[in-house]
């Protein structure tokens, strides 16, 4: 898994590519936490290049979103497709996150 952050005016965009599994899901959580500690309110996860996510990855998304929500911020997902989208749908997590097709659409709501 690779995480490429871009600092924008109203949010930080995290481009996540590859596989998020039991061995590396904590890296995503830690990357998000560094931005939250830094004062970032809104994180946009661009998941266009995410090919795989297991329940350990879902835990990380959920945990980050809960932290941001309690700080009046949000974790926004975009580009979800394939197996990761199926997994978010099956676990009904999709209704708990703001989800957009593209990061531009996500940014337009902030």
């Amino acid at each position, binding site marked *: 898994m690779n995480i490429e952050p871009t600092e924008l005016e109203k949010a930080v965009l995290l481009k996540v590519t590859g596989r998020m599994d039991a061995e590396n899901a904590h890296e995503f959580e830690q990357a998000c936490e560094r931005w939250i500690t830094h004062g970032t309110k809104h994180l946009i996860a661009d998941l266009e290049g995410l090919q795989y996510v297991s*329940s350990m990855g879902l835990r990380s998304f959920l945990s980050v979103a*809960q932290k941001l929500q309690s700080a009046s911020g949000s974790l926004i997902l975009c580009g979800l497709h394939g197996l990761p989208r199926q997994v978010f749908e099956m*676990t009904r997590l999709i209704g708990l996150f703001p989800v957009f097709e593209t990061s531009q659409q996500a940014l337009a709501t902030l």
Partner: protein
Amino acid sequence: MKRLILPASAGSISALSEFVRGGAVGAGIAEDELAKLDLVLEEVLINVARYAYTPETGAVEVAYSQAGPRKLHVEIADFGRVFNPLEADPPDFSRGLADRPIGGLGVFLVRSMVDSIAYRREEDRNILSFTFPMDEAPGDD
């Protein structure tokens, strides 16, 4: 059945998945099902790695055989404490983001992706068995 025994640790998951994937490809299971197979194996094996022997360590055995056309029968066994993952409570989908519990999704995903999942305790072994992939439900798209 073909079998592979490795230490029950997170580090063994990719080798065990690769092993079963070989059987799935040989059985003619569709390419787009293979990532699901990885997911099912990861969810089961991470549970074994975390709970079967803690704080000791032990082994996990993964075995498979062809169960029919494009279908694989898989068994995952450990020699650890009695543990039936299928007894876990289903996730509570009625909760909102703030109080949605963070755990419990792994077993739910496994159940959603395989058929005939069953747990048995045989002598000193926990054995979880299932067939993969799941039959398409009629009317499902």
